[in-house]
C-alpha cells in the first residue's frame, strides 16, 4: 500500500498542471451540481413550505353578519379537529387609487401581536410589519405585480364618508390563503383594527371571517360540515379550502417549475458527464503508465486504488470549493425566484444536501475512474506500454487524405491526423467540447424561449394589449366609447359566468363577444368556437380536472339558476393563464338570452402597433373618478416572468461560463497529452509557430465538430426536457425558441474558444524543451 500511496502522491504533485485542471473541472462540476440542487430545492413545493412556515389556515370561513354572533366564533374554535384559529378578522371592500388606477380592494385587519403560534401569519416580502396605532397599511404582493405598488408609496382610500385619505405602504406581504379564484377575492390591504375603525367607524358594515388550522389538513369538508351544523343555515357565505389555493399557486408557478426544473435536471446531467468524460479521458491517457506499473508488479486492485485514490483526493479538494462557490452564487438567481413564488429563499447549506453534493461528486469520480482504470488494468502489458489506450487507426481518415490532396499545410494535416488517429481520445475530447456546446445552447434556448413568451404573451393566453372594466357606465355606452377610442383596433367584451357541473364542480366561464377574430387566441388542440353557438374552448386545467377531452360535451348549470342546464360541446383547448387553467370560454350571445339583466363588465382591447397609451388612458379615464378603468398588458404580465427571466439569465450565464471553462480545460488537457509528439516534431524542425498552428487545428476542428453536433443535440435535449416538464406541470406545449443569430455566432465562437483554449498549451508545447522530452524517453 505504501507503493500505491507514494505513486498517488507523485502523480498528484508531480503533474501540477494536470492535477490543477482536473481539480478545476471538479470545482466547476460541484458548483453546477450545487446550483442545480439549490434550484430544485427552492422550486420544490414552494406553497407547502410557505404554508408550513406561516402556520397557514386550512379553512377560511366568511360569515353573514346577520346570522352569527361572537359566541358562535368561540364555539367554532372549540370544535374537535381544529387546533388553532386566527381569531375573528374584519374586512371592508373599498376602492383605492394606486398611482392613477382605481382598484377594488379588500381592507382587512390583522393582529398586532404576532408570534410563532399565530395562525396564518403574513410573509413579509419587503418592508416591515405594522406598528401599533400608526395609520399605515401592508399591501398584498399582487398589488406590486399588477400595479407596481412599492413600499414607501401612498395609496388614496375612500373613507366611509366619501373623503379621501392617504395611507403609507410600509410593507409588501404574502398571505397563504389569498385566492383570487374560488371566492373572487380582490387584492388585500392589511391594517390594524384601530386603523379600520378610523376609516370605517361603523363596525356593523364590517365583514367577518376566521381562518382555522386543522389537525387533519385533509378534513376540510368534514370540519366545514360541522361548522355549518353548528350555525344557522347559510351563516357561512363562502369558504376557502387551502388545497384550492395550493392548486392555484402551483398553476401560477408552472412556468418557474418548467424552466428552472429543466435547468436543474440538465445541470445534474452535465455534472455527471463533465466529470466522467474529463477523468475518463485523463485515465485513458495514462495507459502507457498503467502498462509500466503492471510490468513492475502492480496488481489489478492496486491499479484501481491508485487511480481512484488520486482522483478522489482531487475531488476532496475540488468538491468543497465548488460547493462553496455554488452556495455563494445561488442567491443571485434564486432569491428573486423564491420571492416570486411567495416563499423564502433556502440556501443549499443543510447537512443532507451538502452530504449529497460531496457524496455525489465522489461517487461520480469513483465510477468515472473505475471503468477506464479497470480497462487499463486488464489490458495487455506490452500493448499498453507500446501504444497506450488504443492503437492508431490503420486506415487514414478521409479528411486527412483530402487535406493532403488539397495541398493544405502539413501542420493542418498533422492536426487533423491527430484527431483521426486516436478516435477514442478524440471522441472523449469531442464529447467534452460537445457538452460545452450543449450547455451553451441550453442556456441560450431557455433564455430565448422565455423571451418569446415575454414578447408574445398570447402564448401564455394573454391575447390582448389592455383591459377595461366599467362600473356604472352602461355596456352599450362603453362599447360606443371603445369604438371611438384612439388607437383601439379591436375589442371584445367578457362576462364571467359562475358555472357548476351536475356533480357539483364549480368553476368560471368566460362568455365573450366582439372582434374575436382580431385576437391571436392560441388553440393548441381543435378549433375556436363559432359565435352564437353552444360550442366552447377549455383550458387544459379544466379538461384535466373534469377528465374531459376536446370533442366531449359538458352539461352545466349557469349562475346558480334553476333553469335547465346547458350542454356545451368542447371544440378546442386554449392556454388559460389564470385559475389553474380551469376555465371555459363560450360565446356570450348564445348564453345572453338565458341571463336577463346582466351585461359584460370587462373589455379586452387590441391596440394599434404604435398606440399612444397616455392618450388612450386619458380618453378612457379623463378624471380620477372616471367610471372606466384601464390596465395595459405590461402591467398585467406577472413579475414572476421577469424574475424568472433574470434567474434563467443568471443560471444560463453560470452554465455557459462553466461550459466554456470545460471547453478550455479540455483543450488544455488534450494538448498536455501530446507534449512528447511535439518534442519529436520539434527535433525534425517544426517551428514554434507550426506547433501552435498544429495544436490550433486539432482544437479548432474538434470545436467545429462539437458545435455542429452540439447545437442540434442541445436543442433536442432542451426541447425534450421542457416538453416532459411542461406536460408534467400541465403547462401545455412549449414553443422552444433559439435565435438563429446565436447559432451562427456559436460555431465560430466554439472554434475560437477551442483555439484560445489551445493557444496557451500550444505555446507551452512550442516552448517545450526537446532535451527534456528526449530525456523522459
Amino acid at each position, binding site marked *: 500500500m505504501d507503493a500505491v500511496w507514494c505513486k498517488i502522491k507523485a502523480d498528484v504533485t508531480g503533474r501540477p498542471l494536470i492535477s490543477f485542471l482536473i481539480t478545476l473541472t471538479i470545482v466547476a462540476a460541484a458548483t453546477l451540481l450545487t446550483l442545480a440542487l439549490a434550484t430544485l430545492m427552492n422550486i420544490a413545493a414552494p406553497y407547502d413550505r410557505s404554508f408550513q412556515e406561516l402556520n397557514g389556515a386550512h379553512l377560511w370561513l366568511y360569515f353573514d353578519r346577520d346570522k352569527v354572533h361572537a359566541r358562535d366564533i368561540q364555539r367554532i374554535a372549540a370544535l374537535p379537529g381544529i387546533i388553532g384559529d386566527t381569531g375573528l378578522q374584519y374586512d371592508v371592500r373599498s376602492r383605492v387609487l394606486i398611482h392613477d388606477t382605481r382598484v377594488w380592494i379588500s381592507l382587512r385587519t390583522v393582529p398586532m401581536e404576532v408570534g410563532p403560534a399565530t395562525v396564518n401569519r403574513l410573509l413579509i416580502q419587503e418592508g416591515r410589519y405594522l406598528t401599533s396605532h400608526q395609520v399605515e397599511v401592508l399591501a398584498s404582493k399582487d398589488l406590486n405585480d399588477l400595479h407596481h405598488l412599492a413600499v414607501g408609496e401612498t395609496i388614496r382610500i375612500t373613507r366611509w364618508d366619501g373623503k379621501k385619505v392617504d395611507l403609507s405602504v410600509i410593507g409588501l406581504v404574502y398571505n397563504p390563503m389569498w385566492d383570487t379564484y374560488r371566492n373572487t377575492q380582490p387584492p388585500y390591504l392589511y391594517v390594524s383594527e384601530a386603523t379600520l375603525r378610523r376609516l370605517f367607524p361603523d363596525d356593523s358594515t364590517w365583514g367577518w371571517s376566521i381562518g382555522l388550522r386543522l389537525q387533519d389538513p385533509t378534513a376540510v369538508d368534514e370540519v366545514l360540515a360541522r361548522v355549518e351544523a353548528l350555525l344557522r343555515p347559510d351563516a357561512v357565505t363562502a369558504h376557502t379550502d387551502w388545497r384550492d389555493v395550493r392548486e392555484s399557486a402551483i398553476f401560477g408557478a408552472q412556468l418557474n417549475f418548467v424552466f428552472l426544473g429543466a435547468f436543474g435536471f440538465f445541470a445534474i446531467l452535465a455534472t455527471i458527464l463533465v466529470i466522467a468524460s474529463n477523468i475518463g479521458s485523463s485515465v485513458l491517457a495514462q495507459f502507457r503508465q498503467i502498462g509500466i506499473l503492471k510490468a513492475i508488479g502492480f496488481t489489478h486492485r492496486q491499479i484501481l486504488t491508485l487511480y481512484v485514490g488520486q482522483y478522489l483526493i482531487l475531488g476532496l479538494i475540488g468538491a468543497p470549493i465548488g460547493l462553496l462557490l455554488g452556495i455563494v452564487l445561488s442567491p443571485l438567481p434564486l432569491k428573486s425566484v423564491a420571492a416570486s413564488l411567495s416563499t423564502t429563499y433556502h440556501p443549499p447549506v443543510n447537512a443532507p444536501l451538502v452530504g449529497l453534493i460531496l457524496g455525489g461528486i465522489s461517487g461520480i469520480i469513483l465510477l468515472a475512474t473505475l471503468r477506464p482504470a479497470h480497462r487499463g488494468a486488464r489490458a495487455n502489458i506490452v500493448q499498453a506500454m507500446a501504444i497506450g489506450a488504443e492503437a492508431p487507426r490503420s486506415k487514414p481518415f478521409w479528411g486527412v487524405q483530402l487535406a493532403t490532396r488539397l495541398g493544405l499545410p502539413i501542420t493542418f494535416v498533422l492536426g487533423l491526423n491527430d484527431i483521426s488517429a486516436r478516435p477514442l481520445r478524440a471522441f472523449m475530447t469531442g464529447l467534452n467540447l460537445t457538452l460545452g456546446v450543449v450547455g451553451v445552447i441550453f442556456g441560450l434556448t431557455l433564455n430565448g424561449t422565455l423571451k418569446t413568451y415575454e414578447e408574445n404573451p398570447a402564448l401564455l393566453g394573454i391575447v390582448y394589449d389592455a383591459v377595461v372594466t366599467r362600473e356604472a357606465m352602461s355596456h352599450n355606452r362603453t362599447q360606443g366609447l371603445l369604438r371611438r377610442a384612439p388607437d383601439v383596433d379591436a375589442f371584445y367584451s367578457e362576462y364571467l359566468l359562475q358555472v357548476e357541473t351536475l356533480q357539483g364542480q364549480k368553476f368560471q366561464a368566460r362568455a365573450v363577444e366582439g372582434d374575436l377574430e382580431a385576437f391571436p387566441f392560441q388553440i393548441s388542440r381543435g378549433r375556436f368556437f363559432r359565435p352564437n353557438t353552444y360550442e366552447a374552448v377549455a383550458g387544459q386545467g379544466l379538461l384535466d380536472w373534469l377528465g374531459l377531452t376536446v370533442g366531449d360535451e359538458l352539461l352545466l348549470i349557469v349562475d346558480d339558476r334553476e333553469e335547465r342546464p346547458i350542454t356545451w360541446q368542447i371544440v378546442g383547448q386554449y392556454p388559460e393563464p389564470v385559475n389553474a387553467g380551469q376555465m371555459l370560454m363560450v360565446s356570450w350571445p348564445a348564453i345572453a338570452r338565458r341571463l336577463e339583466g346582466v351585461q359584460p363588465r370587462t373589455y379586452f382591447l387590441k391596440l394599434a402597433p404604435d398606440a399612444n397609451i397616455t392618450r388612450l388612458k386619458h380618453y378612457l379615464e379623463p378624471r380620477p373618478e372616471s367610471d372606466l378603468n384601464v390596465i395595459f398588458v405590461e402591467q398585467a404580465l406577472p413579475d414572476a416572468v421577469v424574475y424568472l427571466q433574470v434567474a434563467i439569465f443568471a443560471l444560463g450565464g453560470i452554465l455557459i461560463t462553466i461550459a466554456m471553462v470545460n471547453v478550455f480545460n479540455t483543450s488544455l488537457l488534450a494538448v498536455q497529452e501530446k507534449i512528447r509528439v511535439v518534442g519529436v516534431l520539434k527535433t*525534425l524542425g517544426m517551428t514554434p509557430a507550426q506547433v501552435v498552428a498544429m495544436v490550433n487545428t486539432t482544437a479548432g476542428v474538434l470545436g467545429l465538430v462539437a458545435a455542429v453536433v452540439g447545437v442540434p443535440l442541445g436543442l433536442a435535449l432542451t426541447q425534450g426536457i421542457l416538453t416532459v416538464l411542461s406536460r408534467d406541470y400541465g403547462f401545455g406545449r412549449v414553443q422552444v425558441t433559439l435565435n438563429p443569430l446565436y447559432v451562427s455566432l456559436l460555431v465560430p465562437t466554439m472554434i475560437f474558444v477551442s483555439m484560445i483554449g489551445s493557444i496557451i498549451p500550444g505555446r507551452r508545447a512550442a516552448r517545450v524543451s526537446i532535451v527534456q522530452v*528526449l530525456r523522459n524517453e
Partner: protein
Amino acid sequence: MNHLVEVADLTKTYQIGDVAFGALRGVSMAIAAGDSVAIMGPSGSGKSTLLHLIGGLDRPTGGSVTVDGYRLHMMDETALAKFRRAHIGFVFQFFNLVDNLTVLTNVELPALLADRRDKKRIRRRATDLLEKLGVADQAGKYPWELSGGQQQRVAIARALINRPTLLLADEPTGNLDSASGHQVLDILSEFNQQGQTILIVTHDAVAAARARRVLFLRDGRLVGHMPGGDARRIAQRLTDAG
C-alpha cells in the same frame, strides 16, 4: 581547413534545485565535412548533451557551436528549428517516430515541414530512401507495427530526407538486437562513404569502431581521441578513460 562543425570552449550547466551541475565543461572540437566521428564515454559524461548542442536542440551555457557556418549559440528558437530541418538529421535510440503517422509520412515529414511545394519530389525521395534501407514494403504501416530494427531504418530514412549536412545519431543501436544493430551500422557506414558527415554517440565499441575518429568524454571534458577501426582497442581505451 574548413570544418563543418566547430565547437569552442563549450559549457553546459544544469541547475537542479540549488545545485548547479556541469554537464559540459569547456569542450572544443571540430568535424570536417564527410567525416564520421563517434563520441564515447561513461554514463553522465556529457555525450548526449554535446550531441544535443551540436544539433541545435539545446542552448549552451557558454562557448560556441558553429555548424556549416551557422552560429547556433546566437540563433533564436524559430531559426534553430529551420536550421535543424535543413541541416541536421537525427537518429535516436528509441526511434521517436510519430506513432499515428504511417512510415511513409514519417519519412516525408521533415521535408513537408520545410517545403511542401514539390510533393512529388518528396514522395519520390522518401520512397527511394525506404527502398535503399530495405523497408519500402512497410511504407503504409504504422511504426508500432514494425520491429525495432525496421523502425530504426525508418528513422534513418527520415533523418536523411532533407539531405542534411550532418547526421547525428544518439545510441542508434542501443535498443536493437545484435543483427539489427549491425544492419543499422552498415547503413550508416554506407551513407558516410557516400559523403554524409556523421556524428554518433554510443556506448558500444563495435559501433564506435565504424567511425573514422573516436572522441572520449569524461565528466564533461574531452579526455582523448583515437582513430576508429579497432573495437577492442576502443573498448580498452574506454575502460581506461572511465
